[in-house]
């Protein structure tokens, strides 16, 4: 049983949905990021998605694009991202960490070496936006063999005919992208989301989490009513941005402001 499986089992026992928080590794700088990461579980994050910054995030809106560039400009790289997970695990052995991003930095690092180092660091799952099922041989199959969950995105364009293909090698949970669009844009209507989650659940027993465009505790609560967890990303990285000093560096209140938002969002799943 992986940390992800245990977490969803525990949530079920508590009788509530989970909150998945996305932050970009190294945003706005390596030290501030590590403080944010450390504080996320206590602030109410049930599962942590860590963005592996990339120069060309093709599926992301302005908020996550900018956070990636902030991180890269502050010197973040894959080694530092994995080191941050290692550090986090010295104090926390239960909150699942999912690395999310694009394939090239992983491919460049080397797939086998990446999987070995990610497992050693304490990574539980991977979401790689530009690896659809058609490219499963690249990373998905090696990850599953190595014992790392490979979490697939399902979208409104994934119809019933295609869903089995998408779900085939998915593990941990299914990430339903509630809109056809990029991250951080308008959220889908909840009725549609409920139907979509129900449709996916007809094809799989895996938990279904919903993301894209969720920004407030109220929206988290709406999603929590129909899905196993809600993901918030752009709103959190925007909170990083608006709490920077004028010169773009982290201020005294940056960490608290981000964790404060997460704490507020978590009310959406904790009633």
């Amino acid at each position: 049983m992986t940390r992800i499986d245990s977490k969803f089992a525990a949530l079920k026992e508590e009788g509530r949905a989970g909150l998945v928080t996305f932050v970009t590794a190294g945003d706005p700088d390596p030290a501030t990021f590590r403080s944010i990461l450390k504080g996320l579980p206590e602030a109410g994050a049930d599962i942590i998605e860590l963005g592996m910054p990339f120069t060309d995030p093709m599926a992301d809106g302005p908020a996550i694009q900018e956070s990636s560039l902030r991180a890269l400009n502050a010197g973040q790289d894959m080694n530092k991202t994995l080191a941050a997970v290692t550090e986090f695990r010295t104090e926390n052995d239960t909150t699942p960490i999912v690395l999310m991003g694009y394939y090239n930095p992983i491919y460049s690092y080397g797939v086998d070496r990446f999987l070995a180092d990610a497992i050693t660091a304490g990574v539980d799952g991977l979401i790689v936006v530009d690896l659809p099922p058609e490219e499963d041989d690249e990373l998905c199959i090696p990850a599953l063999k190595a014992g790392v969950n490979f979490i697939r995105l399902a979208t409104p364009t994934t119809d019933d005919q295609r869903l089995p293909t998408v779900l085939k090698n998915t593990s941990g949970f299914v990430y339903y992208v509630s809109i056809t669009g990029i991250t951080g844009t308008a959220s889908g209507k909840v009725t549609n989301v409920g139907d979509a989650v129900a449709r996916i659940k007809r094809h799989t027993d895996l938990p279904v989490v919903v993301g894209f465009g969720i920004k407030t505790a109220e929206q988290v609560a709406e999603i929590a009513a129909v899905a196993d967890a809600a993901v918030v990303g752009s709103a959190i990285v925007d909170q990083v941005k608006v709490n920077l000093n004028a010169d773009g560096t982290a201020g005294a209140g940056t960490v608290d402001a981000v964790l404060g938002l997460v704490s507020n969002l978590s009310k959406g799943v904790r009633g």
Partner: protein
Amino acid sequence: MEAVNSYRNGPNEKGLFGMFGGRFVAETLMPLILSVEEAYSAAKNDPSYWEELADLAKHYVGRPSPLYFAERLTEELGGAKIYFKRDELNHTGSHKINNCLGQILLAKRMGKTRIIAETGAGQHGVAVATVCALFDLPCVVYMGETDIVRQQPNVFRMKLLGAEVRGATSGSATLKDAMNEALRDWVTNVDDTFYIIGTAAGPHPYPAMVRDFQSVIGNEAKEQLLEREGRLPDSIVACIGGGSNAIGLFHPFLDDTSVRIIGVEAGGHGLDKGPEEHAASLTGGRPGVLHGNRTYLLQNDDGQILEGHSISAGLDYPGIGPEHSWLNDIGRVEYVSVTDDEALEAFKLCCRTEGIIPALEPSHALAHVAKIAPDLPKDHIMIMNLCGRGDKDVFTVAKALGVEI
């Protein structure tokens, strides 16, 4: 049925040329990519599709483009006999229109009602805006803000043709960022939108599709030279950014193993000047995954994409079409690079000896021709793809030469 041991059978059903190519896109786009592939397979086997394309190529574009013996240049260089394939005479001034017509006919067949595209120098954007005007479809062209400033005349042309030009401000605000923005638009508007990719790159089936549309260049050149000289060329040369004009010239000759094939990348300030001082993905990069395909990329040790540099806005893309990556690795095509300065010299040479103002892109090909032609025998026949005209570049060239106009 083509021979099994042919260089022309790729890609396979997964869209791979050897290890290069593929379909590295977000799930939202995947069903759409599969439907483009299906529609293209159907169109490819429909003679009426090719008849319509050929009719437009002849009457709207002005094909076949001439194969021209560059006699004064040949004399000046004193070696190989040099022919220009004159795709710069096409309507819109470059080879880009060949591909745009093929893709917009496909978009119509698929019932799509909105067109998007990316552009660097603006040549592809102008060609897309042109075919959208012709077919009365709304058109949005993404262009890096840096390029919008560098290429004002083409921005205005696109607007005259009815296109909306949207600036890409993220990253370095050049071609790769314009492509990111176009992909983001496509993810958001999957139902009604067709993305006309301008080069032989991107997710399968684009590299193969663009190649097929551009192969008219090589097919014509082969036939024209056979008529004129009664034989195949000894060598063929083309410039490479993403590589669409080059693959168009090269592909019909790949199995003619007596033909030496040379692709010329943009060496910018020089490959030895640093990783962001050139745009030579093959000679100065390594394999990676970007914009839907695995190919050679300019990238740092962490797999972050670097900005290319070239005096030619049409060549400064950090990647290259996947078929070129494969042809490089198997050694069928030689890839070399020339610098900004060498391309400028070739630009002037072409103006002076042939009365043709070439675009800066084919000036790179010509710079390499000028390097090797003098040492080749006079009966060596060489074809160079003159893929674009230089009107758009006169300001850039003037600036580089220190002239104010």
